[in-house]
């Protein structure tokens, strides 16, 4: 009850400020909060990155293990993306198995990596039909102040750029690194009333009726999209969101990933 009232007050506040043409934290409508990406922060992981977007903080770790390939792709490595919304990160998160929000988060990030074909899965084959590398991308959310998906997707691709292949630990030989073929970047916008805002913070997320994540590649093409939320979007709103998505992804790629390439 108490929580619902707070929720309503928060939404009203966001609307009020928007009515005067501003965002609650003073940003431009297409402006991101401060972004930082630190790489190789966790040495047990074969790749890792700590991404902050404003106060949102997401740690991504990449682990590799040999495993059996799928029967319909005997010569290809396997990507497994998992997200833990650990209760540390928000009073709303509860311990327990993944719920629909963490499943969606993981699957959208996964879709971008997969759709962009950033990873050359054939290079992850150890022995056809018998053994391939399984790449586990684990998204560990530490602090949720909104827009987890962009932070998680950025952490995932940053972790993947120059991860180590732990051949030695498993008594194997081969290349110890695998260059990425693309750098998909996710850009999320929300619709609040008639406005479209990039990189929603937590207040804005709770006030938004619809959210659209647009993941695009270095060539500007789309590799994944996901609408969520209980609202509807017009064709022209989607067009605007896609445009912002492609534009912002380019900026983020240049500013925060190009130095890792």
């Amino acid at each position, binding site marked *: 009850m108490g929580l619902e009232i707070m929720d309503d007050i928060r939404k009203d506040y966001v609307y009020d400020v928007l009515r005067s043409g501003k965002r609650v934290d003073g940003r431009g409508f297409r402006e991101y909060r401060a972004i930082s990406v630190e790489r190789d922060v966790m040495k047990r992981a074969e790749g890792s990155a700590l991404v902050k977007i404003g106060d949102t903080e997401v740690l991504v770790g990449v682990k590799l293990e040999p495993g059996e390939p799928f029967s319909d792709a005997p010569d290809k490595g396997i990507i497994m993306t998992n997200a833990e919304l650990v209760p540390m990160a928000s009073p709303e998160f509860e311990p327990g198995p993944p719920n*629909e929000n963490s499943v969606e988060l993981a699957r959208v990030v996964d879709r971008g990596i997969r759709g962009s074909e950033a990873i050359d899965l054939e290079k992850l084959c150890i022995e056809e039909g018998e053994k391939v590398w399984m790449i586990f991308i684990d998204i560990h959310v530490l602090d949720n102040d909104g827009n987890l998906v962009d932070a998680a997707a950025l952490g995932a691709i940053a972790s993947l750029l120059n991860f180590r292949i732990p051949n030695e630990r498993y008594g194997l030989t081969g290349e110890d690194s695998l260059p990425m073929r693309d750098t998909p970047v996710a850009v999320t916008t929300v619709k609040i009333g008639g406005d479209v805002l990039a990189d929603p913070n937590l207040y804005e997320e709770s006030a938004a009726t619809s959210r659209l994540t647009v993941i695009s590649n270095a060539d500007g093409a*789309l590799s994944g999209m996901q609408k969520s939320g209980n609202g509807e979007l017009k064709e022209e709103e989607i067009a605007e969101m896609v445009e912002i998505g492609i534009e912002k992804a380019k900026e983020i790629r240049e500013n925060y990933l190009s130095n890792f390439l």
Partner: protein
Amino acid sequence: MKEGEKEIELIKKGKRLDGRGFEELRPIKIEVGVLKRADGSCYFEMGNNKVMAAVYGPREMHPRHFQDAKMAVVKYRYNMAPFSVDDRKRPGPDRRSVEISKVSREAFDPVIIKEYYPKTAIDVYVEVLQSDAGTRTAGINAASVALADAGIPMKDMVSSVAVGKIGGEVVLDLSGVEDNHGEADMPIAMVARTDTITMLQMDGHFKKEEFERGLKLAMDACHKIYELQRTALIERYSKSVGEGEE
């Protein structure tokens, strides 16, 4: 899209493997009110997809602490029968069905008038009995009709279809083989009366122009599906009235 071989030629002489043109839907069959126990139901075929939707409610929500004092709570469960796919699916929800259930529920959020039934639950159940790509869209189409059959007040129905890219061409309503060997897939759901999108997912590789063309194609197709949904309901309704008079 699965990680399989991609060397299959999906387009021959300007036609797709099943003989369809690029902008052509698979055959659709709709039966309304086919289940006795459910408050509303619909059997829906789209090509080789066979899905059944059932609606229960508005009914008491329990456990009670999940009730919403201001409106009905809509739940949506997309489920695949173990024998609906080539490799038997283990019963119970997996991550894929959890996500599909979420976006499908959200596809109906804008149209169901939940305020009429505070504290209640409206349960939508979709069972995929036979699958051939596009089951989530078939499920949404079926659920839409089942909701209407159950008398749940809605601003309007929701219609759903996917577009994709195969052999470099943007085409409507991918079949299973097209999905497995194609380059992109984008399922959408739409309120035909207002041309507003309530579900949108995409994966693969779409240039911006391809995406735009695909979205238009899907939106047009949703209008056609909407007409079939309406027709099926009208037929069912007139039959009921007819039966009532006998």
